[in-house]
C-alpha cells in the first residue's frame, strides 16, 4: 500500500502526519506513536473471549513500514504500548522481541499510560526508556493524557479520536489527528482499537482525518 503523508505546521514546527496513524518530527528524526495496545488480542483470548491472532502482527508490520519510510532515529510511544498484563503472553513478547532485534539501533522511549501501569513494566528485552509525562522533547511536551503544558506544545494519545464526516449522500467515521492552540491528540495506532468521536469536543480545532491510504485536512 502506498501511504500518503501530510506535512503541517504545528505551533511553528513541522510535523508529518502519516496515513499509518502516526506523526513524524523531521527535525528531530522522531516518530510519535500513540496507543498501540499491543497484545490486546492475547488479553481477550486469555480471558476466554476468542479473538484471532494477527492484529499484533499487523500493528508491528505497520510500524516497520513507517520506519522504512521515515528512517527515524527515535520512536516515542505516547502511552498504552502494551494493553494489559496478559499481553506478556509468550507469543506477543516473542513477536515484540523479534521486532526489537530487527531495529536494534533505534532509541525507544515510552511515556507511561494507564494501560502500561496495569500491564506492569515493559519487558527488558525491548530496551525502552521509561519517562514520565509531560516529557519535554524539543518544542513538544509528550504525554499520554491530553493536557496543557506551559511553554510547550503538548502531543498526547489516550483519546483514540475519530471524526465523523457526513454529507446527505454519504458518511464515514475516520481516525483523526486533532490540534488545538497548544495541545494536540494523535489517533490510536493499534490495529485492534476502537475510537471516540470528537466532532463535538474538537470544535474550533484543526482536524486531519485518515481515509484509507490518505490523510486529509477537514479543518485547517
Amino acid at each position: 500500500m502506498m501511504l500518503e503523508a501530510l506535512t503541517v505546521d504545528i505551533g511553528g514546527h513541522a510535523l508529518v502526519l502519516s496515513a499509518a496513524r502516526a506523526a513524524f518530527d523531521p527535525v528531530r528524526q522522531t516518530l510519535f506513536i500513540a496507543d498501540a495496545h499491543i497484545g490486546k488480542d492475547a488479553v481477550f483470548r486469555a480471558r476466554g473471549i476468542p479473538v484471532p491472532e494477527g492484529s499484533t502482527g499487523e500493528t508491528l508490520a505497520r510500524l516497520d513500514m513507517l520506519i522504512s519510510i521515515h528512517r527515524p532515529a527515535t520512536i516515542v510511544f505516547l502511552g498504552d504500548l502494551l494493553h494489559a498484563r496478559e499481553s506478556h503472553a509468550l507469543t506477543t513478547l516473542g513477536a515484540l522481541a523479534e521486532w526489537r532485534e530487527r531495529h536494534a539501533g533505534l532509541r525507544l522511549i515510552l511515556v507511561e499510560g494507564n494501560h502500561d501501569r496495569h500491564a506492569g513494566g515493559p519487558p527488558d528485552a525491548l530496551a525502552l526508556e521509561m519517562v514520565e509525562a509531560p516529557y519535554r522533547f524539543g518544542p513538544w511536551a509528550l504525554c499520554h493524557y491530553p493536557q496543557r503544558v506551559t511553554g510547550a506544545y503538548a502531543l498526547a494519545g489516550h483519546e483514540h479520536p475519530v471524526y465523523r464526516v457526513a454529507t446527505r449522500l454519504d458518511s464515514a467515521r475516520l481516525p483523526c489527528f486533532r490540534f488545538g492552540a497548544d495541545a494536540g491528540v494523535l489517533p490510536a495506532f493499534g490495529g485492534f482499537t476502537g475510537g471516540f468521536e470528537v466532532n463535538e469536543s474538537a470544535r474550533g480545532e484543526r482536524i486531519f482525518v485518515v481515509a484509507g491510504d490518505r490523510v486529509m485536512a477537514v479543518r485547517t
Partner: protein
Amino acid sequence: MSTPADDDDMDNHQDTQPNSDAKRRAPRARRIPRTRAAQAKADAVAELFRPAPIVIDQDVANTPFDARLAAWFERHGWQPFPFQREVWTGILGAASGLLHATTGAGKTWAVWLGALAAYSDKLPSRSLPAPLTVLWITPMRALAADTARALQTAVTELAVPWSIGLRTGDTPSAERARQNKRMPSALVTTPESLTLMLTRANAEDEMKHVRLVVVDEWHELLGNKRGTQTQLALARLAHWRPDLQVWGLSATLGNLDLARDALLAPVKTPRVVVRGAQPKTLIVDTLIPDTIERFPWGGHLGTRQVKPVAAEIEHARSSLVFTNTRSQAEVWYQALLEARPDWAGLIALHHGSLDQEVRAWVELGLKSGQLKAVVCTSSLDLGVDFLPVDRVFQIGSPKGVARLMQRAGRSGHAPGRASRVTIVPTHALELVEAAAARWAVEERRIEGREMPNKPLDVLVQHLVTIAIGGGFKARQLFDEVRTTYAYRDLTQQEFDWALAFVERGGSSLAAYPDYHRVILDAEGVYRVPREDLVRRHRNNVGTIVANATINIAYMTGGRIGAMEESFVSRLKPGDVFTFGGRALELVRVREMTAYVKRATSSRGAMPQWAGSKMPLSSELADATLMMLARAMNGVYDEPEMQAVRPLLELQAKWSALPEPGVLLVELIRSREGHHLFCYPFAGRMAHVGLGSLIGWRVARDQPSTFSISMNDYGFELLSARPFDWETLIQDGLFSPDNLEHDILASLNSSELAARRFREIARVSGLIFQGHPGQQKSARQLQASSGLFYEVFRRHDSGNLLLAQAEEEVMLQELELDRIRAALKSMSGSRLALTRPKKPTPFAFPLIIARLREKVSTEKLSDRVARMLADLEKAARA
C-alpha cells in the same frame, strides 16, 4: 473449590439490577414511599405474585380430582369448552400437542386443568408438596406473574397439594434461593431463566421430574432466537425424560404445521393439534382525517390526529392506543397530555423499556378500570385480558394482518361485546393500507412466521450452557441438538466448528493461542473450569434479544427503566431527553447506569430504539396493491379510498399509480443529486436489500456511492451523478440471476452485515454487558462488535459467525425470498418510467426519510475527498 454458584443469583437478564455475589451486597435500605403514587407502585409489585402455602382439607383432597373439577366448574357456573375437554383427554393420554385459539379463550385452563388431572392424583400424597412436575414457559415476564396467579387460584380452589413458583429476571434472590432448596411443583418462567437453570450443576436432578412443559404464546417465540433457545432446552428435557409431554399455546398462524413441528420435534410422545375457540366479531375501522395532506410524510408521527383520537377516547370506557415504536409511544403520550391536561393521572404509557414496577402499575390500572387510556407498544400485545378495555387504536400502519387482529383482540372482552380496532393513519397513503387491512382481516389472509435456521451463535451459547450445567459428551450432544427442528439439518462439520470455537477459538488452531472457554476432561466430558467464565456466561444468557442497555435512574435513587446504549452514548451531561413521558436531564453515566434528574425544560430529544422498524407483511402489501389497482380502475368503494382519492389522482396525473403487473420507476433531478424511485411493494426490509443490490450492480462497473432510503412501498437511490437507467434496466438490472452472489457482494459494500454482527457477537459471548460492581479490569475487555467484525474479517475470514451474519442479513433482515420474488415480478412487469418535475406523493416520504443506508464501490479516500469537497462547497454557498 467453587462449583457453579448454588446461590444462583444470576437470573438478571435484560433489565434487573444484577448482583453477582450475594455476600458482597449491601443490605437494601428500606424506603418508605413518599407519595401516593410511589405507594401504589409498591402495591402493584407486591400484587405480582406470592406463592401461597398449601392448606388442604383432607376430606376434599381425598375425593377424586374429576369430582372436584366438576364441582368447581359448577360452583363458578362454567361449562368446559369442547376444545378444553379435547386437551384434557390428550394430556391424560400422555400426548403432546399444540393448541391454537384467540386470546381470552381459556387456553390456560385447558392445559393447566389437564395437567392437574393427569399428575396431581398419581403422586404419593406423603411428599408434600409434589416435586417440580410442570414447567410453564412464557415469553414475557409481565405475563409470568399473571399466569402464576391463575395457576395458584386453581390449585387452591381445587385442593391440589401443589406449590406454584415464579422464576424470572424479576424474581428476588431470596425467592430463587428458596426454590433452589426445593423446587415448586409447577414453575412459571421465561426461556432465558430456563436456560439459566440448565447452567446449574444439578440441573438434571432438579428437572428430571418434569412431566409436562407448557409453552405459552409460542407464536411469539417461534420466529426468533429465543424460540431457538426454547427448542434446545426442550431437547435437553426430553433427553432426560423420554415420556416428557410438551404443549404449546398459540394464536392462529398462517403456518400452524411449522409451529407444531418446531415445538414438538424433540418430543417423543404422540402429538395432537387442537383448534380452540374461533375469533368473535372483529371490527376494523379508520379515523379518517378531515383534510388530506398533499404530501404524505414518512417518519412524521401524525400527531395532527391527536384531537380526534382524544375525542374517541373520551367516549370509550377504557382504550389502548398502540403505536409501532417506543419513540412514537412517547410522542403520543406527550401529545395526548397536551391536548387533555386534565387527563394527567388517567392516562399512562407502557413500553418494554420502562421499569417493571411502572409497567405493573399500569397493568393494574387497566385491569381495575382506573386508567382511561394507555399508550403502548407491542409490550401489551400479549397477556391477560383487561376486561374494561373496549376500544383499541392503532397509530400508523398495522404492518401485518395477524398483528392487527391480535391487537384488536385486546378489546371487547366484556360479555356481548365485539373487538374493535380503529386505525389512525399518520400519513395519507396509510388510508390505502387501512382499507387493505380490513379486507385482509375479512378474508383471513394471516401471515405465517419464519424461523431462524440453525443459528450458530445460539448453538455456541448452548454448548457453553451445557458444559457448565453438568458437562457433555460431543457425540451425545450433537444427536440431542439435531432432534430440534431448528438444527435438524445441522452438519457434523458445523457442530464441530461450534465446538472448536468454544474450545480453542476456531478451526484454525494457530489463530487462537492461549484461548480456552470449554475444556475436555479426562472422561471425554466438556466442562467450563473457570469461575469467571461461568459468571460471565450466566450474565450473557439473558441478553439473547436485548440490545446493550443502560439503566436509567434518578440521582436520588429509583430506577425508571432501560435504554439502548447507542442512544445514551450520544448524550452529554446536561442534555435533556424524554423518557417514560417525562423530560429528564442527564447528569452522568456510571457503570451501565445513566443518572438523571427532572429537567426544567419540557421538551428534549426523543430516544431512538434500534430494531423497532417492522416491515409491512407480504399479505398486507399485496392487499394494498390490490386496493391501488381498484383505484386505477376508478373503484373507490371504501371510505378510506374515497378520502385518499385526490392524492391518488394527483399521483396518476404527475406520474402513474403503482399496480400489479406494472413497475413504476420515477427519475427526478434535485439540488441534492439524481434520484431514482422504484415501488416494488416488498416491505421495508426487502427494499433495503433491493436498494443495495441495484446500487451495487450499477456501481460494479462505474465506481460510485448511492444513498438508499426505503419504506414499505419502495426505495430511492440517490447519487451524485446521473445514470442511464432505461438502458440499465433493459440490460437486466432487475434480473433475479446471480441474486445470492450479488447480494453478498453488495453486503460487503454496505454496513448491514457489520451491524447484524452486533447481535451475533453478543449471543455467542464475544461481547458482554457490564454490570454494576464488576471489577474494573473488565474495562480491558472492551471492544465493539464492529471491531470484532473487522478483526475476524481480516485475520480469520473463515469464521462461521461471519457467514452467519451474512446469512441472517440475507434471510431475515433483507428477506431474500421476498427480494427474489420482487425481482421476478419486477422483471416480468411492464416498465412505466416517468420523469416527474417534482417528487410525487409516493416519492415524497422517501425523499425526506432520515434513516438511510448506503452502498459504495469507491475507494474510501475518494469518498472522503468528495464529501470534503461537498462540505466545502456548501460552506461557501
